């Protein structure tokens, strides 16, 4: 058999085609990045307070109170840590519940299956905000007074746990039946198979989607602000916004913080996903 080395022209052509492809990709990336800059510039312009005439039409942009922004930004920034803490604690609780829920949904025991199904149905059938109110406003009626953080983590964890149960179940079911059979054949019990063979492989599958849930949760922690007990980002923004009648600026600051946190964690997330994808091949 002959290979391309026997045809110098062919080798050259392949190289040219590859080079063209690379250039095309570079042009696309350049275009995307330029567009980002333009979009960002437009956004900045919209809040610049500048007035200008364009083709005979007068434009006026939103004028912001920059003194207020610089003065109050540190106070609102003070909520970032709490927002992240809320998210982390809630995702941990949600993951544990999701694992139990998934095991229940896959269980042959009627009560376990029923309990898991009931839990998912109840949580998915009611609004998250109502669940938050339930812990903060409902429970005190019976003398159970939780701190804002505890109530927030319980509400968010329970809620996300129900949704994440399906992710966990899919992860467990993605482990091939051959893995279980091989484990049975060497005499492992169902419990040993779950702990040693199925779950370690399932976890690798579910880490990327759980990362997604975490990013979604970062923003849902803002619902806790409504309770007024947890000084996270949105609560702080509302407080300073109302006090100075600078709601717009305050909300803008909060929005920027949420956005930046999300971008940062999304970057971590895509790195993680790339890492897991590589692990798939090497592991």
């Amino acid at each position, binding site marked *: 058999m002959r290979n391309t080395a026997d045809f110098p022209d062919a080798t050259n052509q392949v190289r040219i085609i590859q080079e063209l492809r690379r250039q095309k990709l570079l042009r696309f990336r350049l275009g995307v990045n330029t567009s980002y800059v333009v979009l960002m510039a437009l956004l900045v312009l919209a809040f610049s307070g500048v007035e200008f005439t364009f083709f005979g039409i007068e434009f006026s942009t939103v004028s912001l109170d920059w003194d207020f922004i610089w003065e109050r930004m540190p106070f609102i920034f003070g909520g970032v840590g709490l927002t992240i803490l809320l998210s982390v604690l809630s995702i941990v609780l949600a993951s544990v519940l999701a694992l139990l829920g998934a095991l229940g949904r896959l269980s042959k025991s009627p009560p376990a299956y029923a309990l898991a199904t009931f839990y998912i149905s109840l949580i998915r059938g009611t609004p998250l905000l109502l669940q938050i109110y339930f812990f903060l406003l409902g429970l005190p009626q019976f003398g159970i007074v939780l701190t804002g953080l505890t109530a927030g983590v319980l509400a968010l964890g329970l809620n996300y746990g129900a949704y994440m149960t399906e992710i966990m179940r899919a992860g467990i079911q993605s482990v091939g039946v051959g893995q279980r*059979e091989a484990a049975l054949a060497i005499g492992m019990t169902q419990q040993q198979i779950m702990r040693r063979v199925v779950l370690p492989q399932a976890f690798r599958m579910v880490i990327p989607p759980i990362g997604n849930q975490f990013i979604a949760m970062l923003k849902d922690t803002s619902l806790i602000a409504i309770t007024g007990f947890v000084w996270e980002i949105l609560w702080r923004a509302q407080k300073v916004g109302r006090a100075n009648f600078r709601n717009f600026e305050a909300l803008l600051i909060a929005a920027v913080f949420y956005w930046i946190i999300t971008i940062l964690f999304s970057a971590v997330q895509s790195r993680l996903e790339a890492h897991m994808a590589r692990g798939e091949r090497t592991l």
Partner: protein
Amino acid sequence: MSAIVRIANLNKHFDQIHVLKDISFEVAPAEVICIIGRSGSGKSTLLRCVNFLEQPEFGTVEVDGVQVVAGGKGRDHQQQIHALRLKTGMVFQSFNLFAHMTALQNVIEGPVTVKGMPKKEAIELGMHNLEKVGLAAKRDQFPSRLSGGQQQRVAIARALAMEPKVMLFDEPTSALDPELIGEVLAVMQKLVEEGMTMLTVTHEMGFARKFAHRILYMHDGRFIEQGSPEQLFNNPEDERTRAFLSHLLT
């Protein structure tokens, strides 16, 4: 000599299909048996019933003194099945190595988790078995980095590490590229020479002819003919066996 494996009146249905029809046979210690037959004849199901990966509805399986009667329920029955599985080692067509463990971890998983063997001792045993299949150098490789033939040899080492009395091979070379079949057969040959009792479902007629003490031809859930390789390959009595072999050899 008393048999090490006794299968009696084994019956198995998949829905309406009667896959195993009252199968009975015995295997002597150190005997090598090859089960051949068309696909769908029930060979793999039979093998998987020996260690109860499939549950037969009726019949008994006895391996090295551990007897399990099909259709049982409860804790005792489960414990008997467990004891039966400890007497048997199984090798699958698709290897089924634990994907998240290295070759050595795969091999020591059974001894450590099932038998509670101290890790150090298990590693020694594991390395011994990896050496036996010629893959000691691959101890820290994950299955996805091994060729099919290497994966299957690790799978054999994993089964051997449990020190089974009987090895069950379920089409061990069917998923392999032709050039990789030889290395797996060489390991199996070594086991034959060591006197391992082996039950092999295979399409590898060369192996069957060379190493089997007895060949069972299975058709439609029954053994319709059995005998030594010479008998069965050279003078098949049943028309269906003849048809199968001529189809295979041409």
